[in-house]
């Protein structure tokens, strides 16, 4: 980021390689279609470029800072248009499963996605960061600007809320 702050475009490219696709995945977990998610991530990287000189590495990691920008923008988009269905391009490429299994898995993924879309922003974010982005509690708490204990408590409530939504829709199965 020091080099980026000095206007080094190649250093910026390294950050893009490292975080670009992951950030798009993060945005898509909020129910955005790919095109919107890519716009969100591009906007986040533009902000990162413009404000690089003001980035303080002592306060947060770059990925934490960038994730916050992406999440805030994704939530803006989500509020603008709450999705009711899984985006067409929100799908796995996995040839190892049969068509029936894939349909069942797609149905589960759709159920989870719809339940997440109905959760409060903070609940959805806690679940997405922890289980879909597989961030540590410490990282997730930093992104959400919370103490770890408070985050763990939030995560617990978020899981309970998600479970309630899934059960109401009859989508959970064991």
């Amino acid at each position, binding site marked *: 980021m020091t080099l*980026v*702050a*000095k*206007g080094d*475009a190649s250093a*910026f*490219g390294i950050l*893009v*390689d490292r975080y*670009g*696709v992951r950030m*798009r*995945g993060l945005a*898509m*977990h909020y129910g955005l279609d*790919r095109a919107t*998610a*890519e716009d969100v*991530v*591009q906007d986040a*990287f*533009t902000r990162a*470029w*413009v*404000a*690089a*000189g003001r980035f303080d590495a002592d306060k947060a990691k770059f990925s934490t800072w960038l994730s916050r920008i992406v999440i805030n923008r994704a939530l803006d988009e989500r509020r603008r248009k709450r999705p009711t269905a899984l985006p067409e*391009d*929100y*799908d*796995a*490429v*996995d040839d190892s499963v049969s068509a029936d299994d894939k349909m069942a*898995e797609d149905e*589960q*993924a759709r*159920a*989870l*996605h719809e339940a997440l879309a109905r959760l409060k922003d903070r609940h959805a974010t806690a*679940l997405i960061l922890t*289980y*879909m*982005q*597989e961030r540590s509690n410490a990282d997730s708490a930093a992104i959400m600007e919370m103490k770890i204990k408070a985050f763990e408590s939030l995560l*617990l409530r978020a*899981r*309970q809320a*998600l*479970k309630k939504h*899934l*059960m109401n829709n009859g989508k*959970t*199965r*064991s």
Partner: protein
Amino acid sequence: MNETDTDKNKTPMTDTAIDQLFARSAAVSSSTGDEDAFLARLKAVPYQNRQADPAGFAPFQDVRALWAQAIGLVAALAAGLAFGMAGAVADDSGALDLSDGLFDGDMVEYFDEPVEGDQ
């Protein structure tokens, strides 16, 4: 396993149904082979935002530089105008005609000095 009231007391992390859902969704790939185009688009950000180059992002300095240029231009115009007017006045009087013979006397004196070894 059916959900029962006792499930409410379970630690959420052991709720296999939800964990499986997350495991499945976490594996969902947002990659469909178009990463290159997407990443190239992101890498173009610095070139599309050169005016916002973080190293030179100082809008107030830019304004000050513009003012300095403007003041310098006005000063140069004023000086040029004053010089032109002075020249016009001098031409009228003929007293300050510096265009001819300024160094003639000096040059003559220099070459009038005998050169050592001459002759």
